[in-house]
């Protein structure tokens, strides 16, 4: 087990290395001269040259990559071009809303989508199954921002039930905190939930067609017992996998959701940075999201041992 963990951890190093190289290349090939931007509107050529030198912008690619990587490993992601603040500080300020949003969505989605998938599989071929699957495909096909606006129009503007925008920290009251997260979570969770529901149904169908389930049924075990004790347990591993892979969808969705609902999280930081070509922030955010993705999938892999006792490493 321990050896596996170490091996698995080591395997993430080349992946993150590639991401780091990619992220660094972003700034390297980015059009525009960061020195000119930093120097401001009225700078002379000499001042720009000076900043060039100071930032080491004239050195060869791999030397600069080395410096940059060294700094990143020491927790230094550079300075934002437009605000002059450290990128780590800007990201740090915005972690809480994004974590709150993604975790809420993750939990709520799994709580709804997995049972829906199980029911659909159990009632395969019936109208319940059809309905669940149609909703799932539709969920796949509705762009998040369209859904977001429809939700705001219905629940905030017409019905006046929920806040339109913003984020309230849980420290400022639990109820406003939850209220502000309901619509964003639905927006963010739909695609992800659709994916999980579809996959759960498929995994369950596969397991349900196995011989030992038939044996269990033949032995006279109650249906729900079969469903939960045997089938779901065996379908757990593929379901966990898709939960991990689906995190990518969640991250993509965060960018749109936070923009529409004016949530001051990392997703909006990303959009702002893209629009202003603030490359150090773009680098930091891509690095962070990729690391999060790799980490979640690492956790999922490790969780296999808990979900399925047959898996031994």
């Amino acid at each position, binding site marked *: 087990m321990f050896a596996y963990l170490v091996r698995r951890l080591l395997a993430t190093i080349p992946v993150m290395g590639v991401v780091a190289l990619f992220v660094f290349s972003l700034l390297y090939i980015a*059009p*525009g001269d960061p020195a*000119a*931007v930093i*120097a*401001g*509107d*009225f*700078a002379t050529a000499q*001042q720009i040259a000076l900043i060039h030198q100071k930032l080491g912008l004239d050195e060869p690619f791999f030397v600069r990559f080395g410096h940059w990587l060294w700094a990143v490993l020491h927790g230094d992601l550079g300075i*934002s071009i*437009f*605000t*002059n*603040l450290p990128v780590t500080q*800007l990201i740090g*300020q*915005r972690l809480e809303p994004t974590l709150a949003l993604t975790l809420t969505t993750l939990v709520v989605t799994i709580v709804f989508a997995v049972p829906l998938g199980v029911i659909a599989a159990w009632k395969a071929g019936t109208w319940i199954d059809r309905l669940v699957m149609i909703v799932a495909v539709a969920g796949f096909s509705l762009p998040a921002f369209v859904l977001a*606006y429809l939700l*705001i129009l219905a629940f*905030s*503007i017409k*019905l*006046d*039930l*929920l*806040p*339109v*925008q*913003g984020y*309230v920290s849980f420290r*400022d*009251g*639990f*109820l*406003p905190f*939850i*209220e502000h997260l309901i619509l964003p979570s639905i927006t963010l969770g739909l695609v992800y939930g659709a994916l999980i529901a579809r996959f759960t149904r498929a995994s369950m169908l596969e397991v349900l067609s196995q011989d030992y389930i038939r044996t269990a049924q033949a032995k006279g075990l109650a249906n729900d017992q079969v469903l939960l004790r045997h089938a779901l347990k065996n379908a757990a591993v593929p379901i966990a996998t898709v939960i991990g892979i689906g995190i990518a969808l969640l991250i993509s969705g965060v960018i749109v959701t936070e*923009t*529409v*609902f*004016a949530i*001051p999280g990392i997703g*909006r*930081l990303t959009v*702002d940075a893209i*629009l*202003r*070509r603030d490359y150090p922030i773009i680098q930091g955010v891509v690095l962070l999201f990729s690391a999060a993705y790799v980490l979640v999938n690492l956790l999922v892999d490790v969780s296999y041992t808990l979900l399925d006792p047959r898996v031994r490493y």
Partner: protein
Amino acid sequence: MASIKRGLPRLAVAAVLAALLGAPAHAQTSGKTIKFIPQADLRVLDPIWTTAYITRNYGYMVYDTLFALDEHLHPQPEMVGSYKVSDDKLTYTFTLRDHLKFTDGMPVRSADCIASLARWMKRDALGQAMAQAVGEMKPVDDRTFSIVLKKPFPLLLDAIGKLSSNVPFIMPERVAKTDANTQITDPTGSGPFKFLKDEWVPGSKAVFVKNPDYVPRSEPPSWAAGGKVVKVDRVEWDYIPDPATAAAALNAGEVDWWEQLPPDLVPMLRRNQDVVVADTDPLGSVGVARFNSLLPPFNNVKMRQALLYIVNQTDIMTSVAGDPENWKACYSVYTCGTPMASDAGAAPLMGKPDPAKAKALIKEAGYNGERIVLLTATDQPSINAQANVVADEMRQIGLNVDLQAMDWGTLINRRASKAPIDKGGWNMFFTWFGGADMLNPSLNFPLNTVGEKGWFGWASDDKIVALREQWMQASDAAAQKQIATAIQEEAFSSVPFIPTGQFIMPTAFRKSLKGVVPAPVVFLWNVEKD
């Protein structure tokens, strides 16, 4: 009504959630906090380094000025208690009023004022003009200092009481000593508010609290002048980039004040009885179409003149501001409705569009289907609208228009390029100025036709430059007006830029706010909240 309507279902949701989660429902106490949606995101804390309006507005929160412009366009003493002008008009002596104190606890001294003015004079165009006249700035004592001129500079008080970017804010000497080309980040000032830098989240939020040590003047507020009495404890700037979300937030009462809204949303907000839509800016904003005078085809004056005949302010302004109550045509290079404005020389722009005349000029210019690159910023509706309409008008007379869309941040980088268009250069871009920045020849950026050293587009017209010098030396209003008119006539002939109309960016706030100061800049003093 809305609050009651809102309250009931909310309570129901609250009860259900509280029951579900077993958590006590906290009521969020807001106290005397104004939640304000600013026009842009505050990113730079140096109002001397940048001309961005949002940073200027931040400056008015945390800093104070020696003089300030009132609603009659007269500079009035603000930090200055009393001042003397020598008979030869060459020596100005200023004495600061009592109780001026920076937020770091230090008193405001003459040295602070001198250092602040010196730094401002390196960046600001009017400041640079003043620098040429200033011989010496010296402290007399801790609270008195004098400015000694080499030659008369009648605009001195107007300069140090300048309303819009760059405003000569007074900072502590240690901060003002920073090189003028390096951004400062220290928010220590002596203004009516204090900036909480720890709570600043660029891209989202900036927080100010009342400065308890600030002693306002006793006069009533008038534009930037008069008593800046802060009547709330805290002001939060919540930046919401999406106007639809911002509108909904104001409608729902989640914020108190939206600084600048797209005019198209006015009717909708007016329907809400708890919201006041007001036009607090008497000067409005002025649209500007700017040419790159260095590159063909607009290095040819005939090409620039041709566009005067097709640019249609009515079409442009309808797209920018919708309903005619929100805009008016303005055939002047100065802000219409102010003393220097007239329609002298504006005939080509004023009449009905004359495509035939434009085509003839284009032919004379020898234009041969070369690509013309227009830059537009899609995140700035009032800029994007100007660009789209003008691009269409240009296409219709057979110009080969390449409208390149980007965001404002990219545009301000792109417009700095003097390269040819196939190397990232450009031929035309659009922007707007607050009316306060177009009042007269000394303030007007695009009229500063000093060529490559000037504002983007680098128009060069020595005649205007000479007239501008004269204007700054003019002794009375009549002389000023005469020279200003001559400048305008020349400007409609050499066409460094084309004014595209004057429009209002309305502001909207909840009924619970009282005492908003009508001015070209949004100020947060004097505002009460029920």
